[in-house]
């Protein structure tokens, strides 16, 4: 379906793919989304056989700026440590694609995009989306880029859920699937934390029922609190203790409600810097998509059924020992379902005290494991060592 007419504003290393209104995205809810725009970045070069494409799926607050300077924060890409020339995901060898999820706020169609029916930002008129919808949009982009099969789909957290969804929905298009620190469904505790975040946003008077953009305000306080609560779940008790303990910001207590403790100051900073780069309504929609995620539920309650057609996909599932957001037993459920389906599965629990966010951080065993997995899988796929 490579439609030259659909292509615009595309550059060598990505851009925004604008699908014509005729190519609407059919959503799980029954609604349709059109026109659809997908913002993406690419790194490296596609080989002649188009066999070396890797799709990286980003997490809840991530975006397509994987391994290049973020245009809003000026900071290195969120996985710069892992993706690049000579790095574990080697852009001298692979063509790496990362797109902003639909519902996001970094260029793909989301609640801040213009609603064609009103000419105003969608706000709450934006349809509720799912992980499956995000993946279907990515599949449209991959198709538009002229790629039949992805050498690998990889992602952590919500990205890992998209990886599972890819394997379930498009097994013939996925050679290998790497799912890091994810879960096959959102647990009651996961939903509970997200509900706290959403309520914080919606309780902010500047939220204005989602129509804050028209009013020229932003629910920054609510979004910051949502981020603060969520950020705690990305760390571990041990990591917080190691980093901050009960250390104070200044000498002595303030006997008031200033940020006395370093951990308070750290969280306030996390909240404050988040609102500069993220949209509150996007946060509502994407957390909702996560809460609705239940891969077994999509397959008659039997997780193994989701992988029945994915037996040829080479799976690599990784978890972190101190992750309490999506703890190791969740990954084990995925692996057991893969085994039950007769799929080719590998699994390692990486020992670390860094919690859920360990997949962004310097974790040598993660790098070593994935480097080994990539190079042996590339050999099986017949991808040459480097591009001539």
């Amino acid at each position: 379906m490579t439609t030259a007419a659909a292509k615009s504003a595309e550059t060598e290393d990505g851009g925004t793919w604008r699908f014509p209104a005729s190519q609407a995205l059919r959503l799980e809810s029954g609604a349709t989304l059109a026109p659809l725009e997908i913002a993406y970045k690419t790194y490296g070069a596609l080989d002649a056989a188009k066999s070396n494409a890797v799709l990286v799926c980003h997490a809840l607050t991530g975006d397509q700026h994987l391994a290049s300077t973020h245009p809003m924060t000026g900071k290195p890409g969120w996985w710069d440590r892992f993706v690049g020339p000579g790095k574990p995901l080697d852009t001298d060898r692979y063509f790496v694609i990362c797109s902003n999820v639909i519902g996001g706020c970094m260029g793909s169609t989301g609640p801040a995009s213009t609603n064609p029916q009103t000419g105003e930002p969608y706000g709450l008129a934006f349809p509720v989306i799912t992980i499956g919808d995000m993946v279907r949009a990515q599949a449209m982009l991959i198709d538009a880029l002229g790629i039949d099969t992805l050498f690998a789909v990889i992602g952590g957290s919500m990205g890992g859920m998209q990886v599972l969804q890819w394997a379930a929905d498009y097994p013939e298009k996925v050679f290998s699937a790497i799912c890091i620190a994810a879960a096959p469904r959102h647990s009651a505790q996961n939903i509970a934390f997200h509900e706290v975040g959403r309520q914080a946003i919606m309780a902010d008077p500047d939220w204005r029922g989602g129509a804050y953009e028209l009013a020229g305000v932003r629910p920054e306080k609510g979004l910051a609190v949502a981020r603060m609560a969520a950020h705690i779940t990305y760390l571990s008790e041990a990591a917080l203790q190691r980093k901050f303990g009960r250390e104070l910001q200044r000498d002595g207590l303030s006997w008031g409600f200033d940020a006395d403790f370093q951990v308070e100051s750290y969280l306030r900073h996390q909240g404050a810097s988040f609102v500069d780069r993220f949209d509150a309504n996007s946060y509502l929609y994407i957390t909702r998509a996560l809460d609705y995620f239940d891969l077994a539920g999509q397959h008659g309650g039997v997780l193994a059924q989701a992988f029945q057609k994915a037996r040829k996909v080479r799976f690599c599932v990784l978890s972190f020992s101190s992750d309490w957001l999506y703890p190791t037993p969740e990954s084990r459920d995925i692996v057991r379902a893969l085994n039950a389906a007769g799929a080719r599965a590998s699994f390692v629990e990486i020992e670390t005290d860094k919690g859920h966010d360990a997949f962004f951080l310097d974790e040598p065993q993660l790098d070593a494991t994935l480097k080994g997995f990539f190079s042996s899988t590339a050999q099986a796929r017949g991808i040459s060592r480097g591009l001539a």
Partner: protein
Amino acid sequence: MTTTVREDFREILRLVKPGARVLDVGCEDGELLELLTREKGVDGQGLELSPVNVSACLAKGLAVVQGDGDRDLDYFPTRAFDYAVLSKTLQQMREPKHVLSELLRIADQAIVSVPNFAHWRMRVSLMTRGRMPETRALPDPWWATANIHLCTLKDFTDLCRDLGLKIDACAALSGGKSARPFDPAGILENWRAETALFLLSRA
């Protein structure tokens, strides 16, 4: 094949049919799976406790799950494999009887090797020293050994009979010598076989 291949692996390589589906329980760094993949073109899957070993396996292109033979076999579907291999670790399982029956639920045949506690070296060590035997086959002192369910050749064949398992082949392994096929009912074998390797199937 090089001479550095372990004798038990050499025997397993001989037993396994080309292109078979093999589950290696406790596959360590993947040496056997790699050998079977290279020499017999098997479709292999490993189960291994140590994360460092699992990473080493992934680098070799093997499909290996970090897991525990005691807990994780239950999740494999029935008759998913042609062979399930368990090398010298049955005696370290919490429930060897359950593990053995699970191996033969998951696979059509199981290849299981066990150290024989009735080997003459064991008997001599216990008789002369009056202490828990420490031999070349079982070198660790009692307080450091991972072996919690040691058995003799007779014990093992009794268990197979109780579980309704058929012994399709068996070989004795002693030191670095080549595997020697033997009859488990043979009168002196319970003294002679240092380690016994069995090919089992459901009767």
